[in-house]
């Protein structure tokens, strides 16, 4: 005892150097700590490197022991991995977040109106705001749901909009995810871990809470349920324990207090969905499904699907069932539709977009295609139907051969590709084997919509743990951080 007065000889941030030409979340270009990060940096520095490291180990072992894993057991051997977690939080000041929140609400609203329109009157196509063939030719466009109005008119109950910050520090949209965005369970678990590992730092920092998410989601789902109150029921539909996101499915069901079901637990009778329970059949009128559209109902989509429920789409078409998210949303988060979202916002809402986005070349357009083929070495090229950092070429880092192969693929199927300039993603101080260093991050906020829209303060900050890497996906060496949206200062 009494040794706490001794200065720790292993400082954390003293040697920290932001990357030139890149926005750093904690330090400005002159190396000064940003005002919003000042308190946290000071408190962490006060702990010292050795203490920090021991708390990092505590966090890792806690995640493993409680089975908070991202890639679950592929066999009975029980191999499991944790989603690497970095203890230095990413901090967003209140004012900045306000703007982001407004931008996200606006964007989700527009995407929702777009989906209602595309599966309804198709006004936006008639007025040629978006080329018809781009929309109707998108792999996510689902003719089978044309004319179906989902309960409450909501298509995007849960949206995950990926944001990045370029060199100027402004948040811009990189990608929309309005099918089954995942990762929110890590936001909640990361927060729990920070409170456990750094209770003092946390208490001093006035951070907005995230714990209400499952309740907000439950409320939103309940408000869209079409059944009368005495026979309604909500459930989470999972592909099963071998799915890599199973932990999250189970987590959300537990935290919402609703059953977690598999396709074989459900059946359709008289165009209504039921769960088999120990007390007999029980009506389900809202399904938060974590199964992709093609697997939902073998009567309508893939006939070989054993994950779904035969007849599900009949219940949906009759308005007896709300599916979250709605069927057919893939047309809205298609990477080739993304460049048109600002136009959607103007068209449906008569507003200017609050959030900017990354300039995008759509290879389906001849001019864009020609430009992309001429500049493969400078661009980030993405297949429109891939996710998880796959099907992507980062031109500046690719070999000549890789570029040539990719150009060939683009020529063969232009509709399937888009290209963007490489953005110098912002960095955040991150613990590495060589001390604290800058690593690139993105941010996935979660937006929940029922009768109203709720934006979870913060979201999942993903970090590319490999030095120099721009890829934050967990499948490609990414980790995560807790995201601290600070409370506004009382005025």
């Amino acid at each position, binding site marked *: 005892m009494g040794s706490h007065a001794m200065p720790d000889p292993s400082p954390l941030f003293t040697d920290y150097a932001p990357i030139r030409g890149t926005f750093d979340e904690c330090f400005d270009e002159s190396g000064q700590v940003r005002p919003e990060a000042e308190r946290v940096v000071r408190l962490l520095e006060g702990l010292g490197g050795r203490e920090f490291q021991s708390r990092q180990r505590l966090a890792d072992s806690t995640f493993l*022991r409680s*089975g908070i894993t991202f890639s679950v057991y592929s066999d009975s051997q029980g191999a499991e991995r944790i989603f690497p977690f970095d203890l230095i939080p990413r901090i967003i000041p209140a004012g900045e977040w306000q703007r982001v929140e407004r931008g996200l609400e606006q964007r989700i609203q527009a995407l929702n109106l777009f989906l209602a329109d595309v599966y309804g009157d198709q006004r936006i196509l008639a007025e040629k705001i978006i080329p018809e063939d781009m929309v109707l030719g998108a792999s996510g466009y689902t003719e089978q749901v044309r004319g179906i109005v989902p309960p409450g008119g909501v298509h995007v109950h849960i949206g995950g909009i990926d944001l990045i910050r370029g060199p100027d520090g402004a948040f811009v949209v990189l990608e929309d995810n309005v099918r089954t965005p995942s990762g929110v369970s890590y936001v909640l678990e990361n927060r729990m871990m920070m409170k456990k590992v750094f209770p003092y730092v946390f208490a001093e920092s006035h951070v907005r809470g995230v714990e209400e998410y499952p309740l907000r989601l439950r409320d939103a789902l309940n408000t869209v349920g079409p059944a009368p109150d005495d026979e309604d029921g909500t459930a989470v539909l999972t592909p099963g324990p071998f799915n890599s996101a199973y932990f999250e499915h189970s987590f959300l069901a537990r935290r919402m207090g609703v059953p977690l079901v598999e396709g074989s637990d459900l*059946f359709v009778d008289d165009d209504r969905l039921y769960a088999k329970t*120990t*007390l007999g*059949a029980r009506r389900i009128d809202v399904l938060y499904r974590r199964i992709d559209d093609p697997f939902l109902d073998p009567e309508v989509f893939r006939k070989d699907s054993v994950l779904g429920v035969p007849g599900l789409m009949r219940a949906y078409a009759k308005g007896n069932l709300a599916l979250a998210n709605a069927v057919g949303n893939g047309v809205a988060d298609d990477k080739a539709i993304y460049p048109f979202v600002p136009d959607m916002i103007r068209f449906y809402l008569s507003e200017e977009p609050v959030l900017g986005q990354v300039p995008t070349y759509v290879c389906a357009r001849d001019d864009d295609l020609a430009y992309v083929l001429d500049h493969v070495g400078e661009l980030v090229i993405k297949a429109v139907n891939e996710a998880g950092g796959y099907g992507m070429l980062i031109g500046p880092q690719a070999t000549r051969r890789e570029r040539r192969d990719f150009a060939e693929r683009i020529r063969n199927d232009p509709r399937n590709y888009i290209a963007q300039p490489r953005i110098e993603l912002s960095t955040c101080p991150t613990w590495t084997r060589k001390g604290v260093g800058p690593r690139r991050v993105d941010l996935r906020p979660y937006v929940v919509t029922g009768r109203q829209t709720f934006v979870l303060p913060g979201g999942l900050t993903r970090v590319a743990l490999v030095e120099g890497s721009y890829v934050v996906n967990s499948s490609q060496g990414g980790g995560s951080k807790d995201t601290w949206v600070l409370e506004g200062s009382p005025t």
Partner: protein
Amino acid sequence: MISRVAGSCFWLNRYMERTESLARMLGVNLSFQLDVSLPNAERWRPLVVVTGQEADFVSKTTEAERDDAEVVQEYLTWSEDNPSSLYSSLRGARENARTIRETVSLEMWEVLNDLWVWMRSSQARRIYDRDRHDFYLQLRNQSLLFHGVAQATMLHEDPFEFMRLGTALERAGQTARLLDVKHHSIGPTDPAFETPAEAAHWLATLRSCSGVEPFLKGGDRAFSGRAVAEFLLFEPAFARSVLHNLRRTRNFLDLVRPPEPTTVGRRSKELVAASLARFEEQDIERVFAEGLHELVTWVVDTTAEICVAVQDDFFDPPPLVEPTRAPAEARPPSPASGAQSQSQTQH
């Protein structure tokens, strides 16, 4: 609750009970076979017989190996191919728990996950090699911890009742199997004449289910094979007696069924009621007159039948909104329970 989840609760506890029961049998047999002089064939083989795996064991071993204590213990403890081994039972328990993480308490999951991680560690193997008593003891203790943690951390509602239903049915069957070990090693019992080996065996049987002190607490009981059998079959207050567990089965079933009038679970209820009535009519005189082996075989078969009825009624019900509508479709076997076929003693 969701039928499949109820099934996983039920199987989770059945597998845990198998783990504990077999660990006890193996641990007790270690010292029992030191106390008596029995031919090699009678020392360890009976344990394989009562776990229902004799045919499988014979097909995987040579004549010489079959009576080798090490081979038998290896098979019953570690074999991944033996669905009744400790290893397989523990894996079954953990797999079922993992598919219902939203239902079991976090504390239960941690106990079970830790035990599984330990079982697969080199440390467990070292303890097994060095101090086998301690190895089986640790398994038993962790299993007891699991039950205590469940009691203290689960909501006492349907999922917990289905777990306890699984424990009760498995225990009734396991106690019956245990009573059959002697039949397979020494032969039928003649209550009029007991050899020292038989007396030692009965004592071991009691020890296998922590029954020695409970038995002695009934102060006027003379120690004999008949008294031990009577205790393990009919003592209503003993947590591992057949009668106790059949009655608990009835009680848990009443708790998980909807209020009357209902058709849900009727077949299970009627079967349990009839089995219990038949069992309660028995007394130890009649049991020995008609053969202990015959009665315990009946208990094992009956508990297996009840499990099937519970499975059909609760875990894999036909997709009917109203019970009077169209006939059920053919049902696929439940994956969680597919690995086990411990439903018959071998004769």
